[in-house]
């Protein structure tokens, strides 16, 4: 059994030579292509992952931007609404004031007109009554009085009447 534990020098040299040649052969024929393909695939996967991460961060950025823009638009809409409400309030107040002023002036005018009409009617009535009274008196006394005297007498009569009334 000594042969089992005594290495053959020739076989050692053969083994080393054969193994080193095998290393070279497999490097050229197997490991080169295999590891090249694996590394290319890993590189591609790494690039794709980076691209996906970039796309995700880009999407997040856009989303944030959109949200900011939406918030800004909502703020603007709120501001516009508030301004419109304030304007409408101002307009309403102005219109109300104007309408009130107009109605007041119309009322005053109408009142003045009515006073004027009243005065005129009263004066006309006085004149008419005086004429009728004169005619009646004339008929009663059957005596004609000149027109100027009639007017003076009647004027005095009505003045006294008015004073008495008051």
């Amino acid at each position: 059994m000594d042969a089992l534990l005594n290495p053959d020098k020739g076989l050692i040299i053969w083994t080393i030579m054969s193994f080193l040649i095998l290393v070279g052969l497999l490097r050229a024929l197997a490991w080169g292509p295999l590891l090249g393909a694996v590394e290319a695939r890993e590189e591609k996967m790494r690039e794709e992952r980076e691209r996906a991460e970039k796309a995700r961060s880009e999407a997040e950025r856009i989303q944030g931007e959109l949200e900011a823009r939406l918030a800004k638009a909502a703020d603007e809409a709120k501001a516009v609404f508030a301004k419109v409400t304030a304007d409408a309030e101002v307009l309403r107040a102005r219109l109300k004031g104007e309408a009130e002023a107009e109605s007041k002036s119309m009322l005053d005018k109408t009142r003045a007109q009515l006073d004027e009409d009243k005065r005129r009617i009263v004066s006309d009535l006085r004149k008419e009554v005086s004429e009728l009274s004169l005619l009646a008196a004339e008929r009663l006394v059957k005596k004609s009085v000149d027109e100027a005297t009639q007017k003076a007498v009647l004027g005095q009569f009505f003045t006294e009447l008015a004073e008495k009334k008051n």
Partner: protein
Amino acid sequence: MNIEQVLGHHLLDHSFFTLFTLPGGVAMNLTKHLVMIWLVSAFSVLSLGYAARGTGPAARILRGGVETLALYIRDNIVDPLLGHDGHKYLHYFLTLFFFIFFCNLAGMLPLDAIPGNPGISGTATGNVGVTAGLALCTLGLIVLGGVRAQGLIGFLKHFAPVPAGLPMSVIATPVLGAVLFVIEIVGLAVKIFALTIRLFANMIAGHIVIIGFFSLIFIIGRSGVFVAGPFALFMVTFVNCLELLVAFLQAFIFTLLTAVFVGGVMQHH
């Protein structure tokens, strides 16, 4: 029946003829284990080359398997142990693993049973000469890797790791350096020797156990009792399964330890 003859026939190398003789009287014989090495090498080139370059569905399946093992060796052995320079030596470790693995498996093929076989069979990795050759390749890689990574001076300094700032450093440093140098050199030789013996012993042990169980049939049968057959068959099947595991495990361990030793001299301290 002579057990020793049977053992010798199955375990020992057998020289067919001498191819040539080197100066110094080293005979370069063509032996059955050498033929096995060449057959395994040819098979490795063909099968792994097909796996790497083939285009058919079979090649794709084979590539998947080879790639898994190759990436495991890269990601779990070479990269962690050798650092970023490890990829330069990756093809060496892959070849080492697959060569030892295929040699171990080839030793389990019953090539003797093929009619007309002139005795080409056996486990090449169960020959101490072959494992010594592989371990010397590891030694070569340790030296090459160390010198390439740290330069010749840095590599030699690695063998005398004297810490700085010793008391009486004028005397202590050279003395301690010399002692450590001897210890480190002996340590390296022991590592290489252990690599040689570990693979050789593991591969031959299973064969010896199998032959032992088979011999039981004849030893017990000589006394006229034929009961050992089924038992021996069961045990041999069991040991064969164990040997399949050991074939993979020892290829892995040899590769791992080579990476540990090479990584040890490549890292800066």
